[in-house]
């Protein structure tokens, strides 16, 4: 094998390795993360660029935004693209809401500011074309949260009775 061929193979292996490590990281959070449900307000715009998907907006994001505006959060001013952490409280069904200032919380969720709004890891749920009817009853987003990093991964949607869709 000559040097150029070896370099090509090595380069391709590095890139493929990087993407697989990233995917494995996400899969790890999906497997081992704590289950949390977020209230959502679904919309279903269609986009030429992204195929069929449901645009998601979470009540928790609105709570964090309000808290940032009123200065109740620890770090009130976050610039576009900056990352913050929100302490969250879970009810008996594991539905998340923003923990009250000073109240104990053992779970925190990482978020980013995008265009002045709070971004909780995703704002869209993609589904197969023509299956949109299945998701019209969606009421909660099911997330897995990594306790250490606060990273949240959306794993599915649930209806009002917490049945998986």
């Amino acid at each position, binding site marked *: 094998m000559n040097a150029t061929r070896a370099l090509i193979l090595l*380069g391709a292996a590095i890139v493929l390795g*990087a993407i697989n490590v*990233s995917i494995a990281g996400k899969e790890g959070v999906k497997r081992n993360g704590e289950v949390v449900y977020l209230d959502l307000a679904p919309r279903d715009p269609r986009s030429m660029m992204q195929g069929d998907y449901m645009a998601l907006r979470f009540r928790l994001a609105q709570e964090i935004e309000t808290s940032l505006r009123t200065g109740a959060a620890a770090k009130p001013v976050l610039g576009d693209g900056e990352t913050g952490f929100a302490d969250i409280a879970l009810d008996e069904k594991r539905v998340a809401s923003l923990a009250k200032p000073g109240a104990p919380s053992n779970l925190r969720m990482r978020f980013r500011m*995008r265009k002045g709004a709070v971004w909780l890891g995703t704002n869209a749920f993609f589904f197969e074309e023509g299956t949109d009817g299945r998701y019209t009853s969606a009421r909660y987003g099911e997330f897995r949260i990594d306790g250490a990093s606060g990273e949240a991964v959306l794993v599915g949607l649930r209806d009002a009775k917490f049945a998986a869709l």
Partner: protein
Amino acid sequence: VSTTELFLIAMAIIFTVPYLIWRIAKTDYWAPLVIVQILTGILLGPGVLGKAFPEYYAFVFTPAVVQALNGIAWWAVMVFVWIAGLELDLGKAWEHRRETSITAGLALGTPLALGALAAAALLMYDGWIGPKAHAWQFVIGVGMACAVTALPILILLMEKLEILRQPMGQRLLRYASLDDIAIWGVLAVLLMDWERIGKQAGFLIVFTLVTFAFRQLMRWLPAKDRWHVGLIWLAACAFGADWSGLHFMVGAFLAGAVADRQWFDEKQMDTLRHSVLLVVMPVYFLSTGLRTNWGVGGAAVFLAAFVLLAASIAGKLLGVRLAGRVLGWKRGEASIIGWLLQTKALIMIVFVNILLDKALITSETFTALLLMAVASTMLTVPVVAPKLEKMKSVVMQEA
């Protein structure tokens, strides 16, 4: 200390530090002066020296000084990209369209694909995608950054390797010219702002119409007037592009791309390129370095730069190797062409500055891409020079 004095202190730093490093450490073989200037810009920026000596940084680089430097940097890079547009050799590319399109297509497509995969990996972590980017814009933008060939620096390196006027040098110019057009075209698509689509369409229509008049005028004008009118044209096109929401650099490139290089004296053009690089571009390199950010952690930035470099080099070598197979090149030819075409330097730095300006990438991604561009360019001469020495006959090889 007044702003003027601080500005002059900054200018003295910009011109002294890289020159001394380049001259005393004799870096020219593996790091030409432009590369040292970019590296110095990074070192002088907020992430390295600014962090070690915050007082120095706050004292010299006040907002007023940074603003003044930015003005020079904008014009410097506009002139530089305009010349890059002028240097496109599309006539020759058309004459040899089969081999040029196959080579340029594969040399662009494969690093773009691998770079897009690397970008998809970055997308899974916080801190890399810009606040205004859609995922597809980030993936294509970073992928394209991995696919860039820097035509102006390629010309400088080929001059240094004494192959610019040889058949191989001319072939490389054709491939790089076609790739350059594709890169700026993709950039324009990435920057399309659907809220301002009317303005952008309006700019492109007016630009197309006025271009005909401009070309008639330039043909009619005596040579001594063409430089002056060319610069007016550059400023006007850059303004139009920026006004419509495309970046002023897209306008600068278009201004050069629609002009014929035969209108300008070749020697004067070489002199202008060298003068711009000598007199004003160092300011651009520093202003680029000032924008670097290591917020996600130094190790993460270096790791991302490494993966992007692997995507870029492996993609370029693979693409050109495939082209060589299709076109029946001699053994070793594809390797030399691939290594030369993977030179990134200035055009990629301009490209990623635009992605950062438009908030498609974060300053951490910008830093990783900048490091990747520097590494890619530094590898070129040390890798290619010994190969050329071994295979002198290949340099004279027509496609």
